[in-house]
């Protein structure tokens, strides 16, 4: 089986701007080309677009606008983990031999239709994501005797880290008091604990080992992939204080990479809401159940950027279809020692955790240099 490497990346700044989806896609892709001096459009076999936008045939539009005539081109949508699922598809095209070089571009607008799950009627009138997040938050706090202050620290840490990410929507550190005094959305959730919908794009270039060296001197290898969907309905989650799909996806990814949680040097965790970060740390196996928050506190107090160095979704913003790709860009930069002020020392093994639909689906990638 050929190895598959990340050989290029690009991003746009995340914002609340009213920009056409096609322009956001083009912006992220142009940034990728600007950073890839050895890349020729003729070498790109496939163009995959990751988005929840209702706009049609975006792969063809992006290809035309960037002078690519791909053999394979289409959109991938799976709500908030569309980005990493597009990477999984690109990986499969390369391993199967159908493609050697694949461009993946993800984009979303601040008003994405992917934010509310209309199909999931069993949530009644409580379809907005703040309601499942509140249920998770209440359940996790109860089970492990945690307080609102404990979870608020996730937002404090990630807003602080986003200050060093020039592409993040948030460029301001906040205190625990500011988080706790921000708008009370529910009894268990404050505004500053939420990732914000935004406009943004991110792109990744994947290559087979045959062509990697032509494009990049420092490819980052995808060594593990795990993806698991347990249901589509929020209320079908087997528990509200842990993440079953994340647990299973992580197991698959570690098994494929022949790695284990203790070997991971840097990670992107899908902190759609503050409670998601410690819960995901538990479910991935970094921490014993209920201990994720202790690790978050240790990282914050020691100024260690190991978890969500770019500021996570809470600090960076959450343009759904671009999020998994932006997470992967960050881990790639970390493993290339190109993350600037966010750099984690001696990062050799990285992990991306990207999930969707109230934790009913998750994708985990292991990257190595």
């Amino acid at each position, binding site marked *: 089986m050929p190895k598959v490497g990340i050989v290029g990346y690009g991003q746009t700044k995340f914002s609340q701007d009213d920009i056409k989806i096609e322009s956001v896609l083009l912006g992220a892709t142009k940034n990728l080309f600007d950073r890839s001096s050895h890349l020729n459009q003729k070498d790109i076999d496939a163009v995959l677009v990751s988005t929840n936008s209702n706009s049609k045939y975006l792969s063809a539009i992006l290809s035309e606008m960037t002078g690519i005539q791909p053999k394979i081109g289409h959109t991938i949508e799976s709500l908030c983990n569309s980005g990493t699922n597009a990477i999984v598809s690109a990986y499969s095209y390369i391993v199967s031999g159908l493609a050697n070089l694949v461009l993946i571009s993800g984009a979303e607008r601040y008003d994405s239709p992917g934010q509310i799950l209309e199909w999931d*009627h*069993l*949530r*009644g*009138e*409580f*379809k907005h994501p703040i*309601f499942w997040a*509140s*249920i998770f*938050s*209440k*359940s996790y706090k*109860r089970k492990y005797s945690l307080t609102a202050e404990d979870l608020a620290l996730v937002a404090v840490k990630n807003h602080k880290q986003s200050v060093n990410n020039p592409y993040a929507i948030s460029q301001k550190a906040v205190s625990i008091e500011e988080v706790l005094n921000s708008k009370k*959305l*529910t*009894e*268990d*959730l404050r505004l500053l604990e939420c990732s914000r919908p935004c406009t943004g794009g991110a792109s990744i270039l994947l290559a087979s080992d045959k062509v990697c060296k032509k494009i990049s001197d420092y490819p980052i290898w995808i060594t593990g992939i795990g993806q698991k969907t347990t249901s589509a*309905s*929020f*209320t*079908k989650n087997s528990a*509200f204080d842990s993440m079953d799909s994340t647990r299973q996806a992580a197991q698959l990814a570690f098994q494929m990479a022949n790695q284990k949680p203790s070997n991971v040097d840097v990670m992107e965790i899908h902190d759609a809401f503050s409670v998601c970060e410690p819960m995901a740390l538990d479910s991935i196996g970094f921490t014993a159940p209920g201990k994720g928050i202790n690790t978050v506190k240790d990282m914050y107090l020691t100024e260690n950027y190991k978890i969500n160095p770019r500021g996570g979704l809470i600090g960076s913003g959450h343009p759904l279809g671009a999020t998994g790709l932006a997470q992967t860009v960050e881990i790639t930069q970390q493993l290339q020692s190109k993350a600037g002020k966010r750099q984690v020392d001696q990062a050799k093994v990285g992990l991306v955790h990207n999930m969707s639909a109230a934790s009913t689906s998750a994708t985990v990638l292991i990257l190595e240099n």
Partner: protein
Amino acid sequence: MNFESELKKGNFFISECNQCNKIVWPPSEFCNQCLSNNSWRKCSGKGIIVEFSKKEDTYFAVAEIENSVKILGQIVSGRPKIGDQIKITDCGIADDHYFFKMIILD
């Protein structure tokens, strides 16, 4: 009939497989285990509170009905605790949304 047509009338129905007797949820015409046809059974609407939170003055809760199916709905009376017995007293479709209203039983 189906789940939605009954819900519109304020009735809460559960789908059950004619072949393997599995309760199928979300409600569906076909069993998600053996793909046989389901039938519809009117449900007591009684259950227990699995988890809850509160927005402004309104409690919302995940309730497990008849030990089998879960919904997210509004508690219209009382202050919930985990494990409280509830009953769905009003349900339907309004503004394209389902709604489930529950009371806490003494």
